[in-house]
C-alpha cells in the first residue's frame, strides 16, 4: 500500500492478557517509530528503529513492552500482562532520512 498500515485498528482486551500490534511501514523507509497517545495527552515516544542500528528503546515505559522489526519492513509491538493504564492509541510512523514522519491511523487499545 501507499501508506503506513497498522493492525488491528481496534483491540479490546482483559487486564493481564498479552497483545501484539503490527505496523507495515512505507516501502523503502529505513526509520520506524512507535508512539502512543493516551486520552487527553500528547504523543509519547516509545521506540525507534533506524536501519540496522540498535533500536532506541528509551521510551518504553516498562519491561512489559517490547518491539521487533524485521529488516526494514514489518514491526510488531508487544505488550505483556496488559494494565488499564496501557489503554491508548498506538501510532506507528516511518520515514526516510528527512525528518518527516508518515503516520499510520493507529491501533486503539482498550484494556478492561
Amino acid at each position, binding site marked *: 500500500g501507499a501508506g*503506513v498500515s497498522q493492525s488491528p485498528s481496534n483491540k479490546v482486551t482483559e487486564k493481564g492478557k498479552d497483545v501484539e500490534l503490527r505496523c507495515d511501514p512505507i516501502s523503502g523507509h529505513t*526509520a520506524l*517509530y512507535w*508512539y502512543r497517545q493516551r486520552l487527553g*495527552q*500528547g*504523543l*509519547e*515516544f516509545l521506540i*525507534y528503529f*533506524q536501519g540496522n542500528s540498535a533500536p*532506541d528503546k528509551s521510551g518504553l515505559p516498562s519491561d512489559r513492552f517490547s518491539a521487533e522489526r524485521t529488516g526494514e519492513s514489518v514491526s510488531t509491538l508487544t505488550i505483556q500482562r496488559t494494565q488499564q493504564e496501557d489503554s491508548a492509541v498506538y*501510532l506507528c*510512523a516511518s*520515514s*526516510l*532520512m*528527512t*525528518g*518527516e*514522519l*508518515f*503516520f*499510520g*491511523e*493507529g491501533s486503539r487499545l482498550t484494556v478492561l
Partner: protein
Amino acid sequence: DQQVKQNSPSLSVQEGRISILNCDYTNSMFDYFLWYKKYPAEGPTFLISISSIKDKNEDGRFTVFLNKSAKHLSLHIVPSQPGDSAVYFCAASEASGSRLTFGEGTQLTVNP
C-alpha cells in the same frame, strides 16, 4: 521532562482570522522542527518544517517562525478555515531524520 511544550491545550478563532499556535522547547540541541496536524481517528500528518538555520518558512496559508534565542516557535495560519480545525502538534529533533519529540498538542477550532 517535557522537552517540547505547547502550553495552550485549545484555541478558538473565527474563520478568516489568523490562528497562532505556539511551542516552546528546552533542549538546545534541537535543530529541526516540524508541525503535524491530526484529525480524530486519523494519524498525524506532516504540515510544515523548519531547520535552525532559518527563522521563517512559508507554505501557502501556513508559516512557521523560529526564535532560537527564545527557544520558541509558532505556526501561523492565515486565513483560518473551518477545515483547519484539528489538533496541532509541534515536534523537534536534534537532526533531520532522528527521533522526534512531540508536544502535547493544541486543539484548534475555527468557527464559521
